[in-house]
């Protein structure tokens, strides 16, 4: 059980951080950039909110299939494949929430800090501090979606014991076997992890408010 829970947290946390690596700069570009393509990326983020994890899982599994375009990587049914799939699942959510967080503040703040003669690095640090609560909320929401999804994890991980089995896929298997006690135990741990994540988000928001 501990190994399954640990893998769940590790895969989902890695996917969240990887998604943030693309989503946050993307959100910064949408909010502060000048290109006309910004609207297209925002639309892509918004459309991606409803992306079914099972569809993402199918696409990633197809790509990594032995005879697929990325089959030579031999990565299907590995935690890495699950991370990639979950990254795609949570990226639009983190991107959309990051855009909302970045837009929440006074849009003239960067200019006003520049007008006070603050060096560029200091300005960036202060602006980051302003949006930190919103970005933290975006990351924790992304983590919550990643750890709760089952379709992508099942398709790309294959639910292999002690290798790619996570709490959601383990729950499905337990129910399939009629082991409801075990299934409830997995779900209880899953809910506990989600509760800790949500509690952390709330505590951070309160501290930063």
């Amino acid at each position: 059980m501990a190994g399954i829970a640990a893998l769940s947290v590790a895969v989902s946390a890695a996917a969240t951080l990887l998604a943030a690596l693309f989503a946050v700069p993307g959100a910064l570009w949408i909010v502060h950039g000048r290109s006309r393509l910004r609207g297209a990326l925002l639309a892509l983020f918004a459309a991606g909110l409803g992306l079914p994890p099972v569809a993402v899982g199918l696409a990633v599994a197809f790509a990594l299939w032995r005879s697929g375009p990325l089959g030579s990587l031999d990565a299907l049914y590995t935690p890495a494949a699950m991370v990639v799939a979950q990254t795609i699942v949570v990226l639009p959510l983190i991107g959309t929430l990051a855009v909302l967080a970045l837009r929440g503040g006074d849009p003239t703040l960067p200019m006003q800090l520049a007008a006070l003669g603050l060096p560029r690095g200091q300005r960036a640090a202060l602006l980051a501090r302003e949006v930190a609560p919103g970005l933290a909320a975006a990351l924790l929401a992304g983590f919550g979606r990643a750890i709760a999804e089952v379709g992508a994890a099942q398709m790309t991980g294959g639910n292999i014991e002690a290798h790619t089995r996570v709490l959601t896929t383990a729950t499905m298997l337990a129910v399939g076997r009629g082991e409801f006690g075990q299934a409830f135990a997995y779900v209880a741990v899953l809910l506990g992890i989600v509760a800790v994540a949500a509690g952390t988000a709330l505590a951070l928001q309160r501290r930063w408010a």
Partner: protein
Amino acid sequence: MGVTATDLIARRGAFTLNVPAFAASAAGTAVLGPNGAGKTTLLLALQGLIPANGRVERPARCAAVFARPAVLRGSALWNVAVVAGSVLGCTVTEAESRARRALADVGLDEAVHADARTLSTGQRQRLALARALACEPEALFLDEPFANADADGRPALRALVRSWAERSGCAVVLATSSLADAAAVCADALVLRAGSVVHRGPVSALDTVADGYVAALVAEGRIVR
């Protein structure tokens, strides 16, 4: 060193600002004009915050108060101290004592520990003025800084800016819709209308200017007096 500009042209959307010559010293230059005349655009262009053509010279250390000041998450004291500390490169303790002095100067000593985001617009403008003065600027760009101040607090704020300019030699550029503000802080005036300069000269001679807006401003000033 003051703030000077020649052949300044700045565009914001369909609006074009055209100022052939501008100068501000510690004596202060008020930028007057009806809404949409280009006062804020001129201030932003002089500070190099928006793209503009022409030649602008300004001191290395400038500070500004915007018409709607943006504040950071945290106390009023922190807001001023973090900016002053960063600009002047001083220690946290020194930045805080500077911030306390600046906040007391603008009459915000009671609100030092208040969350800056909960302050009223007038208080935010005072905070922004304290933040700007704590940076010890050599040029100060003020955009309607007293617009939301209480009537009984306004003279003290005007006097604060004037005395700071006299003491430090800091150039002052003040965009305002109030002749009283202009007269109390600045010796010179520049009147804009639809992006063009319609008058340049001493504030004291504005009553001789043949312009409808200026005439209304002067008349309003007389009624108030």
